[in-house]
């Protein structure tokens, strides 16, 4: 039933270059969270820090009452068994075929017989749609397939926490939708805590329960999806709606002149909040909350047209705001 990750005051720098400062958040158990941020804000570094691959300068990462930062190496390897990690390019072992790659964690960490291993591996390969590709080497398949094989490998030990680094980079929109659907269905099945690092706005708007935004060396905001999607905070608003107007510039931050130049510009209205992606068989996930619950609970009026379709507010997709408004009233 998933494990929560509590991050307190996490700070990381490489040499004199600060990556992020004082990041504090709690990834709720069993929920899907997305970590967003402009390129180069250390999203992948954050993910690697969470599994203990990189040591933060300060702060704590608490999982099941243990602080990952101060754990001894031997204990760290134990805690890592809770994790499944999908790296950007799948990080498959190049010398093994897909079957052996997926079977690897089972052979290393369990005493299962080869026939049990075979059953599990084939089941997970089928889950990610790679049946029949067991004998292929990682070098022989496409990036999307490598990613899915990496996901299968991350899943074989039934992780409590699944960390996913840019699942959509290098994937076409259709495959991205499939993989998003897969995450939702997986979460319903295994109830693990998910953290997805991405900068795909469409996925961010529809997939997660929680969204975090890393910007300018700190965590700008972390909270429920509806909170960020209805937020008027300039950085959050600019990023989640893929606008050029706002504090984020082409290279990191805009300077005062640039900000002054656009001060008169009117921001486009907040687009409607889309419905969250449901499981493919329609049964609700354990962590799923009714649409609009957060907004109602906090007295926020969601932008008109919200919760009418999963495509609402997607940049570039024409919106029928009038129809939405009519439906709401």
């Amino acid at each position, binding site marked *: 039933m998933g494990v929560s990750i509590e991050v307190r005051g996490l700070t990381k720098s490489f040499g004199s270059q600060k990556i992020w400062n004082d990041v504090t958040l709690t990834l709720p158990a069993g929920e899907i969270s997305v970590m967003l941020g402009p390129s180069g804000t250390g999203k992948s570094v954050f993910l*690697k820090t969470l599994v203990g691959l990189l040591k933060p300068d300060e702060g704590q990462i608490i999982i099941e009452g243990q602080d990952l930062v101060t754990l001894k190496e031997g204990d760290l*390897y134990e805690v*890592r068994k809770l994790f499944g*990690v999908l790296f950007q390019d799948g*990080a498959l072992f190049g010398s093994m075929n897909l079957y052996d790659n997926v079977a690897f964690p089972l052979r*290393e*960490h369990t005493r299962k017989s080869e026939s049990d291993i075979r059953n599990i591996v084939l089941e997970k390969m089928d889950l990610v749609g790679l049946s029949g590709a067991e004998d292929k080497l990682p070098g022989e398949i496409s990036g999307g397939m490598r990613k899915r094989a990496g996901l299968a490998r991350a899943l074989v030990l039934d992780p409590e926490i699944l960390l996913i680094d840019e699942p959509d980079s290098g994937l076409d929109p259709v495959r991205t939708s499939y993989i998003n659907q897969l995450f939702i269905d997986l979460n319903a099945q295994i109830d693990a805590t998910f953290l997805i690092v991405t900068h795909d706005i469409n996925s961010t708007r529809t997939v997660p329960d929680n969204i975090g935004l890393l910007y300018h060396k700190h965590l700008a905001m972390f909270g429920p999806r509806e909170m960020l999607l209805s937020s008027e905070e300039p950085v959050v608003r600019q990023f989640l709606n893929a606008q050029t107007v706002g504090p984020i510039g082409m290279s990191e931050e805009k300077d005062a002149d640039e900000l002054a130049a656009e001060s008169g510009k009117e921001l486009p209205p907040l687009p409607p909040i889309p419905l969250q992606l449901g499981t493919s068989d329609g049964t609700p996930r354990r962590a799923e909350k009714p649409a609009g619950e957060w907004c109602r609970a906090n007295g926020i009026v969601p932008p008109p047209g919200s919760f009418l379709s999963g495509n609402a507010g997607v940049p570039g997709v024409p919106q029928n705001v009038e129809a939405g408004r009519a439906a709401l009233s």
Partner: protein
Amino acid sequence: MNLLTSPIKQAGALFALALDVLRALPKRPFQTKEFIQQCWFIASVTIVPTALVSIPFGAVIALQLGTLTRQLGAQSFTGAASVLAVVREASPIVTALLIAGAGGSAICADLGSRKIREEIDAMEVLGISPIQRLVVPRVLAAMLVSLLLNGLVSVVGVAGGYFFNVVIQGGTPGAYLASFTALAQLADLWTSEIKAVLFGMVAAIVASYKGLTAGGGPKGVGDAVNQAVVITFMLLFVINFVVSAIYFQVVPQKV
């Protein structure tokens, strides 16, 4: 400041890795398959070049010594001197060059490319220590192969020396063979083998260190390989000097 601390940091990290390797050595399960594969791999990239390098190496020594002994009027000791030179210095050095240049660079490139493909990270996340799994078998394999290579170089070098001295320079075969053990002793061979094992260990550890810390894409791997080979060469020549110096202090020489 950075200019000063960064080499010290690197040296410290290198020694830390060496200690980690030592600590991971007794850990079970021992990666027998990986060890055998690595032995075979390192041997296959080094045997032929080693043999080909050691023939001219032995020949050069024979030529130099042949001339020198004639000038000094000590032709009868040509064989003795040439065996001594080949076994004591030439063969560990040739082994070092090949283990670092062919074996070490291959290890570094292999681990480096795994590092940038995040395979190493993935392995750690899966709860497996890359040091125990990948580095220990490679270090042991490099040690074993360089031990064996050293023997090969000694034999080929001495045979090459014989050929050049006797056949080309017209030396006396009997005198050459008879003086073999006039100066050389068994301890020379032992020292030579100890050197070779040390060289294999250092080459593999430096290559692994550079490979595991490679970064910055494919170019980073290229740089890592380059640095690994250069650093290994420097270390090996220093170690060679130190071991030789100790040897002369510890082992009494034939008079």
